[in-house]
Every structure is written in structure tokens, then in C-alpha cells.
């Protein structure tokens, strides 16, 4: 029982990180109906930025803030420069562009920072809290996720800009008619998603260590989380993230062993897509021929 509780709590902690990245995926999906394959590499790149700031002597939290801003700007620039031209292109072209982004970010990071694995500091104290069940970093990661979620909710619910972004995502034509600059709203959405991804990267880096390929597995779990929660439902994606985290940890520890953990994500992704494509909390869309 003790062991199970431990695994569930650890699962919640990693789940929080998956939830953040899933949230970033859902934000871009909602605005553009695209799944960003480069989301993980964007997060990784932002985390390297944070690492070099911290190494240069900047204290953790200012570095954190600067990284979030950097990721935001990076996201906006990428949307404006790279994604814009293929906005209305066929799906294949868009997927190819995302993959291109993925390999470019990956290799540029490898080029600048080398492929050796680096450690990344955690802002939280090293000693465990809640007795022996949870490290402070795990608890902190969950807390950060929840704060981000709350801020996002408040932003979309209570600010005019948030309303404009929702309008642009839901009905671009009407939004444009009432004077919302839809293109810029999409760019802002990309910026926000990149910023959230950056936070997820900084939270996961102390656990998986920093290397250019660190986000591969995390991205897969985030895909699974987004799909489980319904790819058009931000709340669902967060819930899905926690669910996937717990499931992965418990199954990995007691049923199938650590080696097959990634297969859990594969099975979840294909299973959800085939059996319930709208996820557990998503809207069902009916297409008329």
C-alpha cells in the first residue's frame, strides 16, 4: 500500500508536467487545429536558455521569468515567420514544417550546447515533505502547474485580450468582422503555448536531466494526455495529464516494468484515437458529407 501511494504521488508530479505540455498542445490545437510536433523541442530549447542564464549567475526565479518571456517571444516569432506561410496548406505540408522545426531546434541546441547531459537545478528544497512520500520538487512542480492553470483560466475568462483570443479561435471570420486581429491572436496563442512549454521544460529538467532529446518521451505522454482529455478542452488536457502520469507510474512499477512505459503512451494514443477520438471530456464533432 505504501509503495502504491508513493507511485501515485510520483505519478501526480510527473503528470503535472505532462499536463503543462498537454495544455500547450491544446492551446495551439484550439487556435489552429494543428498538433505541434515541435512543442517538446521548443520547451527543451527554452530550458537550455534558462540553464545558460543560471550558469551565468542569474538567480533561479529571475532566470525563470526571463525564460518564460524568451519562450513567449520565440513562439510568436516562429508563428509569424515559419507557420504563417503554410497556414492554409495541406496537412502534410504542415506536418513536414513541424518536423523541420523539431529537427532544427534539436540540432541547433546540440550545436550550441553539445550533446552531453547536464544537470538542471530545482528551485525547491532537497528534503522531502509529506513524510517520505513526495520530494519537494515533485510537490513544487504540481504547485507550479496549478498556478499556471489558474493564471491561464483567469486570463481567458476575465481579460478582454483573452476574450479576443477565444473569439479568434472559435470563429475567425466573425472575429475579424468585429475588429479582432486574428493573425496576431494566433501568434499570441503560439507565444503562450511556448511559454507554458518552457515552464514544463524547467520543471521536468531536474528529473530527466538536460539533453537535446530529453522531451521525446515527455512529448509522447503529453500527446496521450491531450487526447485522453479531449484535444479541444484545456481543463480536460490537464486532468488527462495527471491521469496519464499516475497510470504510467503505477503500471510501470507494478504491472509491465519500466521498459515498457513508453508503450503505455502508444497504446493510450492509438486506443483513444480509435475508440473515443474526442477523448473523455472533448466535444464530439459530426461532419456532414
Amino acid at each position, binding site marked *: 500500500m505504501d509503495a502504491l501511494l508513493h507511485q501515485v504521488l510520483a505519478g501526480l508530479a510527473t503528470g503535472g508536467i505532462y499536463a503543462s505540455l498537454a495544455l500547450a498542445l491544446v492551446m495551439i490545437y484550439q487556435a489552429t*487545429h*494543428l*498538433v505541434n*510536433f515541435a512543442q517538446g523541442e521548443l520547451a527543451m530549447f527554452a530550458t537550455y536558455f534558462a540553464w545558460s542564464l543560471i550558469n551565468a549567475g542569474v538567480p533561479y526565479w529571475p532566470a525563470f521569468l526571463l525564460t518564460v518571456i524568451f519562450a513567449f517571444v520565440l513562439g510568436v516569432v516562429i508563428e509569424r515567420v*515559419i507557420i504563417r*506561410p*503554410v497556414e492554409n*496548406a495541406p*496537412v*502534410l*505540408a*504542415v*506536418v*513536414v*514544417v513541424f*518536423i*523541420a*522545426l*523539431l*529537427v*532544427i531546434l*534539436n*540540432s*541547433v541546441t*546540440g*550545436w550550441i550546447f553539445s*550533446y552531453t547531459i547536464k544537470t538542471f537545478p530545482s528551485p525547491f528544497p532537497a528534503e522531502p515533505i509529506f513524510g517520505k512520500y513526495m520530494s519537494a520538487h515533485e510537490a513544487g512542480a504540481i504547485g507550479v502547474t496549478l498556478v499556471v492553470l489558474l493564471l491561464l483560466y483567469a486570463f481567458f475568462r476575465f481579460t478582454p485580450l483573452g476574450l479576443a483570443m477565444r473569439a479568434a479561435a472559435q470563429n475567425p471570420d466573425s472575429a475579424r468582422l468585429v475588429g479582432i486581429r486574428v493573425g496576431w491572436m494566433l501568434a499570441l496563442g503560439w507565444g503562450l503555448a511556448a511559454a507554458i512549454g518552457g515552464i514544463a521544460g524547467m520543471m521536468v529538467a531536474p528529473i530527466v536531466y538536460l539533453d537535446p532529446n530529453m522531451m*521525446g*518521451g515527455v512529448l*509522447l505522454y503529453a*500527446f*496521450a494526455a491531450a*487526447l485522453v482529455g479531449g484535444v479541444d478542452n484545456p481543463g480536460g488536457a490537464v486532468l488527462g495529464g495527471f491521469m496519464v502520469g499516475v497510470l504510467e507510474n503505477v503500471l510501470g512499477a507494478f504491472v509491465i*516494468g519500466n*521498459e*515498457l*512505459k*513508453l*508503450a503505455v*503512451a*502508444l497504446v493510450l*494514443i*492509438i486506443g483513444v*484515437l*480509435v475508440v473515443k*477520438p474526442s477523448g473523455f471530456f472533448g466535444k464530439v464533432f459530426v461532419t456532414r*458529407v
Partner: protein
Amino acid sequence: MSRRQLILNALLLLAACALPLVVSDYRVFQFNLVLVYAIALLGLNLLTGYNGQISLGHGAFYAIGAYCAAILMDKYGVPYWATLPVAGAVCLLAGFLFGLPALRLEGLYLALATFALGVSLPALLKYHHLEKWTGGVQGIVIAKPDPPFGLPINSDQWLYYFTLAVAIVMFVLAWNLLRGRVGRALVAIRDNHIATEAMGVNNAMFKSLAFGVSAMYTGVAGALGAIAIQYVAPDSFNIFLSIVFLVGIVIGGLASISGAIYGALFIQFVPNIADDISKAAPWAIFGIFLLGFVYVMPMGIAGAVRMGLARLQRKAQNK
């Protein structure tokens, strides 16, 4: 095929046959891999280029083919040439089975599912209950086949000719498949699946079949690749292999048979040149080329060649 095309192909074939006699053994090995990649790219192009189903996980089928060959040769002493049909059959089945759920997925979602397959396969290959066959993280080392009948060539050259023969058969088969009813159905499904269904084409059947045949091509390529490299290990089949294949078909030319060859030459030789700059350079160059081709040359090298030839022809006629 027109007469000019026939002559051109014959000349090309002649050049391919003469190649190992004039270049070094290492180059022969590299061109052998070009042929292997060409078969794999042709397979992916059948699915993604012609049928419009995006796969970001074809490295998985390549890996299955490679492991089939390696396990059969290493554990059961099967001769290398006999492993190809088995690898092809296993991948045909695997692709067909994966294609069934994929029927319900369109565009982006299929890309996602195949991406997941590509990312998680190396972990499956390392699974310790399969270690008896797969050799776990260490992988399997296999012996290089000697040339038969006492031919006066070395084993690199022999393998090159062997791969060339297989590649020719595979290309002719694909060409035959694509120029007829099946090819038309595949392209029609890509362009408008509803209209195609209304015309009486069994979409589900053709789509899962396309997946199976595509996986078979890639699997045979995987087996040939394993024989050429004499080694298989889980980490050489990671997601980046699948991405390399995508790079190959986009740069070679989507929905084009000759595009597979251009793409294979690109993915074999460009990293070689770029490696001198930095370990990361090949991938940066791949990425930049991908972006450039999507924006400027969406038909790839094959499309550019076609356009150039057409322009030359027009000029000749106008004179």
C-alpha cells in the same frame, strides 16, 4: 513507358551495374545503402505520397524487417536471401494490422499515432522478455555473406548487385501497381475520398492494403540494410530514422517513383558531407532543406527535374 524513357532507364541501369567496378569498396557500401533507402522511400511514398496517409513512424517497419533478417540469420541459420520474403511478409502483416485502426484516423491524427509508434519502438526492442531473440540493448551481429558461385568480386560488390537486383524487382512491381487501377484508386482516395467511395472504390480495403504494401517495402529494405550493415541495435531505429525517411520523400519528390532515388541519394550523401562541419550539422541541414522544399519546391527534386525537362522540350519544339 515511351521509347526515350526506356533508353534512359537502360542507360541508368548500365551505369548502376558498372558503378562497383570503378569506385572504392567503401563507396560501394554507401551506394548499397542508397539502394536500400530507395526501396524504403518508395514504400513510404506509396503510402504518404500516393495515398495521402501520413506516416511518421516508418522507421518502425524498417526495424521490424531488419530484426526479422537478423534473428533468422543469427538464431536459425537461414541464408540471407531467404530472409527477405519473410521480412516482407511479416511487415506486410504488421502494416496491414496497423493500417486497420489507422483507417479511422485522418491526416494529423494518423501522423500522431505513427509518431508514437516510431518513438516507442526502440523501447519495445529493448524489452527484456524479448532479449532471447533481439539481444536487448546490445543488438545482434550478423556475418557478411560471401559471393556465390566463386564469382571474382568481393562481398561488398556482391551485396551491391544483390540489393540492386531486389531494388529493380521492387521498383518494377511498384511501377506496375501504380500505373493501373490500384494506383488510380490510391491517388483518388488521397484527393477526394468521398467521391472515390461514391465511385465504388472500397476505401477501407485500399487504404489498409496501401499501409501493408508500404510496410512490406520498408521491411524488405530493413532486412537488406541489416545484411549490409551486419548489425542491428534498438537505438539505430529511433524516431530520427523515421524522420530521415520523411526528409527523403519530401526532398526526392512526393508521389513520384524516381523521387525515391533522388531522396535516397540525398539522405545518404548530404549527412556525409555535413558531418565534417559538426555532429549537429546534418540535422540542421535536413531541417532547413525540409522548410525550403515545402515553401519553394513542394514537388521535390523529381518535380523540378520534370519541370526542367518539360521546359527544354518546349524550347526544342519552338525552334
